[in-house]
């Protein structure tokens, strides 16, 4: 187990390094000169050279890249003398557009993204899985057909469309909910809940639809298994047959999917956050892209990759405890 974990972590570091190299290459080597962007309209060639030196973009590509990697472990200093900017380890870069370290920017936005992700995840797991189970058990009934119809629309309708419709109906017309915002929980828990409810719902809708359909398919497959017939032949009640024998094999594959989806969301719910104007990592990303703030894009990408890779390891380890066939081979 320990050697397995070490192997996985080493592999993960390798993948992260590769992701870093690729993103660095794409954003820094292929797109517009960041110095020109920062300098603005009133700009002299000397000024541009000066900014370039501060940013380090006058160096060859590999030197730049290793300076960036070095910054993550040891911190780095941009420029020299009185204008020098300290960026302590782990330094994910520095945005000269906002004059903030990238890590700090992400750190500021993280709580909002986590709140959105956790709330939505709870919603979609509860609704998606239970709707899927119910549909499988009541296969072919009107409930099944209706639920699957809704799920299909949840998968096919774009997020922002649902967001705008819900906002119009619930906020503008009916005035049941406030405009979505990101208040602190401590000030007014009820207001906090109402403010986040719509983003959660919008985000959860698509995922819940997918999970419902997947759970239904898995559950129907499992219910056709021979061991379900055995469980019934033993005289077990339908509660035990479903809850003990059918549910666990049906949900195990969903754990993998959930790990990936949740980790992906921690890197920011780009569309939902942007549509509702919530200051999470997703909004940070879309803003950075529109302003071509390369250090931020770079940092967010690396961060998102880290989340997914870590989630991957956690899910794989978890899987070995969930499926005894993976845990142990023939004794």
């Amino acid at each position, binding site marked *: 187990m320990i050697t397995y974990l070490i192997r996985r972590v080493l592999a993960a570091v390798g993948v992260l390094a590769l992701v870093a190299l690729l993103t660095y290459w794409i954003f820094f080597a292929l797109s517009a000169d960041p110095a020109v962007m920062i300098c603005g309209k009133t700009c002299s060639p000397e000024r541009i050279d000066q900014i370039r030196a501060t940013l380090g973009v006058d160096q060859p590509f590999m030197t730049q890249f290793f300076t960036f990697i070095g910054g993550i472990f040891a911190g780095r200093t941009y420029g020299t003398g009185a204008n020098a900017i300290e960026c302590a380890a782990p330094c994910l870069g520095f945005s000269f557009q906002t004059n903030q370290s990238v890590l700090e920017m992400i750190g500021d936005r993280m709580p909002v993204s986590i709140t959105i992700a956790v709330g939505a995840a709870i919603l979609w797991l509860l609704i998606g899985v239970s709707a899927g189970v119910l549909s499988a058990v009541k296969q072919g009934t009107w409930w099944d057909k209706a639920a699957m119809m809704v799920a299909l629309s949840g998968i096919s309708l774009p997020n922002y469309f649902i967001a705008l419709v819900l906002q119009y109906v619930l906020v503008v017309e009916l005035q049941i909910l406030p405009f979505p915002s990101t208040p602190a929980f401590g000030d007014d828990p009820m207001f906090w809940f109402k403010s986040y409810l719509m983003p959660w719902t919008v985000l959860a809708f698509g995922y819940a639809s997918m999970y419902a359909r997947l759970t239904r398919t898995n559950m129907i497959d499992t219910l056709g298994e021979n061991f379900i017939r055995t469980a019934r*032949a033993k*005289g*077990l009640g339908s509660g*035990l047959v479903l809850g003990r024998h059918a549910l666990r*094999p049906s949900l195990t594959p969903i754990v993998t999917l959930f790990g990936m989806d949740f980790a992906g969301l921690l890197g920011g719910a780009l569309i939902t956050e942007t549509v509702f104007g919530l200051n999470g990592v997703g909004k940070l990303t879309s803003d950075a892209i529109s302003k071509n703030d390369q250090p931020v894009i770079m940092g967010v990408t690396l961060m998102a990759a880290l989340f997914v890779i870590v989630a991957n390891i956690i899910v794989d380890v978890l899987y070995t405890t969930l499926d005894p*066939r993976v845990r142990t081979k023939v004794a």
Partner: protein
Amino acid sequence: MKKVEPTGPAPLLEVNDLTVSFAARAGTTTVVHGISFSVERNQTVGIVGESGSGKSMTSLAIMGLLPAKSSTTGGIKLQGEEILGASERHLRKLRGEKMAMVFQDPLSSLNPYYTVGMQIAEAYKAHRGGSMRAAKLVAADAMGRVGITDAKRRVDHYPHQFSGGMRQRIMIAMAMCCEPDLLIADEPTTALDVTVQAQILELMAQLQDESGTGMVFITHDLAVVSQVSQHVLVMNKGRVVESGSTEEIFSNPQDVYTQALLDAIPRIDDPIRALKKVDTGLVNDK
């Protein structure tokens, strides 16, 4: 050879004019056509037939485990009590307690996510109550009785950690843990190697001797059925074409289909005979 001793007035199992049909798009398909037979305590009745003969549907009908879209008519009496059409709640009490079943493929018939001890224990607990811990002790005991060595340790193992023969022993232990009056074995040795088959058949005979359980043994293998049963039903396309004592059926078959089947099976003790073609018009390969 075992003697058939009727215990009291009613036989252990009495199947009377049983018909099973499925609703299909073009009308209904009948898979079992009015079959009748009975099983006494300590007796084994063999049902033999090729694929599509309706033998497995018969066993599922007795257990009340047919799919919901099927319909059944006729009668199934267990110890004199009519159980065809009984409520699911009542059937649940009978399954595992009064009648139990062993299936063809032991690996897929066991849940891969739970230990074998737990799966035997829950069968016991469902009918006898008590704690899971106590039921696990019963499970270990049952596993020991079907010849699994080191049963106390192996109750905590998962199905995939056993060989095919051991898994079928576990299925038998599970079926027998509440000492049912009737055991239905549906092709219990078909998926097993021939040496393992011999061991399992011996184990089933031994358990029957000890407990006096009545048995319905379903198989496609004529040689196996000739060895395990006192009474044989030959089924073809949902009908019983012939039934009688095993000796009668094998030494003096009356029906053309039975005769053709006996001509068609390859025999390990008779290399010279060319296999005769089954051309009675009843066979599937037309």
